[in-house]
């Protein structure tokens, strides 16, 4: 059997390979990297029976165009409401399908969402580094040659399998997430802010700016002020930490964050809401809501339970639906729910 490759025909900036992340090395300054939206990444993998943290493509707003070489390859897509087409035919953003040699799968930014994950039936065969294939481009670590994907890259897929014969939608209602409020646990340095500034942080709307990347989500709005300066002696940074530097605009530190930092962190986005925040397109207005650790853990448990079972694939009969149906995941989700 000839080796199977997932080949990149064209790529916007910043498409990378990500697995569960490079954990256990923060003490040496090594950023974990890993997916910006861990829930969507895990869903794409689980839809094909892969381990939740297997290596998958993370595709940002710049999109990508792919084909298979050497044989048919099953793929699953989950994440933002991107515009996806297989040889020109629209595919819903939560889907599993078979990509055949000569076919082209195009992914473009859509009406919502900032990251789309593409998992493969098989294993993307790139070398692990410190136990992980996650790409950290600033360090040149992991992924495909330590960098973002480019046109001409051929990703070898070990144990490649075809996917479903027809395009299927993923039954993953947990991905139909309301942008709504982003839940946070206050701290670890909320004591660097007065009570009225904490209240302002929670009451004011914040707008996601276009400056964001895998390192951080930058927010615009009325700046916050500090009660006792904005320098702290460096300490650790968790994913989702919201640091407030001197100018007062909050910055949410994400997958490619530095391991330590010296600005006070007013709050930390809870794990289950990291993906929702990451998926907010520039211009999105959001608010933060403070919750306790127990509430955050309950949300985490619900997420883990949703992902624990197999993910059903529903065949999509194109002719049954008007084309606008294919453009929105909410509509897709509604129809799928109706059948369940």
């Amino acid at each position, binding site marked *: 059997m000839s080796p199977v490759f997932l080949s990149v025909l064209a790529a916007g900036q910043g498409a990378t390979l990500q697995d569960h992340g490079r954990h256990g090395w923060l003490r040496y*300054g090594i950023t974990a990297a890993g997916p910006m939206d861990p829930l969507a990444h895990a869903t794409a993998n689980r839809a094909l029976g892969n381990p939740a943290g297997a290596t998958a493509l993370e595709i940002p707003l710049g999109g990508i165009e792919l084909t298979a070489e050497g044989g048919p390859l099953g793929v699953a897509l989950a994440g933002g409401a991107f515009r996806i087409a297989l040889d020109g035919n629209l595919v819903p953003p939560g889907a599993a399908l078979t990509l055949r040699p000569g076919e082209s799968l195009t992914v473009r930014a859509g009406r919502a969402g900032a990251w789309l994950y593409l998992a493969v039936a098989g294993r993307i065969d790139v070398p692990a580094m410190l136990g992980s294939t996650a790409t950290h481009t600033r360090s040149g670590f992991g992924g495909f040659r330590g960098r973002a994907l480019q046109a001409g890259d051929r990703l070898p897929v070990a144990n490649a399998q075809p996917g479903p014969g027809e395009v299927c939608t993923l039954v993953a209602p947990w991905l139909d997430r309301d942008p709504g409020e982003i839940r946070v646990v206050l701290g670890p340095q909320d004591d660097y802010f007065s009570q009225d500034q904490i209240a302002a942080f929670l009451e004011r709307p914040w707008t996601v700016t276009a400056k964001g990347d895998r390192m951080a989500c930058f927010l615009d709005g009325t700046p916050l002020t500090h009660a006792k300066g904005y320098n702290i002696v460096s300490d650790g940074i968790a994913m989702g930490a919201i640091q407030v530097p001197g100018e007062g605009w909050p910055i949410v530190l994400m997958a490619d964050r530095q391991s330590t930092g010296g600005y006070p962190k007013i709050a930390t986005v*809870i794990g289950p809401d990291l993906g929702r925040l990451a998926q907010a397109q520039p211009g999105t207005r959001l608010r933060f809501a403070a919750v306790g650790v127990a509430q955050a853990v309950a949300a985490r448990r619900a997420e883990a339970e949703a992902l624990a079972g197999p993910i059903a694939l529903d065949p999509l009969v194109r002719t049954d639906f008007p084309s606008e149906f294919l453009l929105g995941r909410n509509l897709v989700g509604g129809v799928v729910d109706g059948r369940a």
Partner: protein
Amino acid sequence: MRLLDAGEAALVVEFGTTVDPAISDRVLALDAALQADPPAGLRETVPTYRSLMVHYDPLVLDRAALAERVGALADRPAAARAAAATWTLPCCYDPVVAEDIGAVADLVRRSVAEVAALHAGGAYRLYMYGFAPGFAYLGGLPEALAVSRRATPRPPHPANAVMIGGGLAAVATFSMPTGWYVVGRTPMRLYRPGQDDPFPVGVGDVLRFEAVDADTFAALDRRAEAGEVVARKEA
């Protein structure tokens, strides 16, 4: 000691708010105790100057149980910490590679040779890694070399740069722009990709620097590139 939540999956154990060897001792003692007997659900720990960040899986390890464990361990005397190793790193202070040593000499009104001797005379505690992969923050810089960081960053420094700034010293594994001053270069790699022990120098270890000339540096650098540990370790 204060326990601060960094979300529902990380707990910051804060022993103080300053750079202080006594605080660092307590951080490292708790780190060693947790590493020696990690509770189920402990993911990783990150020692910094003044705090230990404990990442955990809250579906396995309950926050209250972790807090109790940390409380019990943190009360142990700091002397329980395993003896740190002392490393002697070759360091080339020749201005050909020590790109900013002349600028530092001007700032502190001493000769280049005096700056090199002062720096090589210090014993440095590796307080923490942070900022970038294999970027080691070192305390113990002689007072006479306590220059501020640059107002604006300089262009990328060479790999394995030995730097000073803001009253601290550092060894920076990867080349990048910096607000610090490059006063030397070591051939020793703090990060050795693909080796069984990719980070041989641990947090809490003591670093000394031994001056070598440019030719010796070049020879050692080739050996280090081939995978050799070119620093001396004393337990």
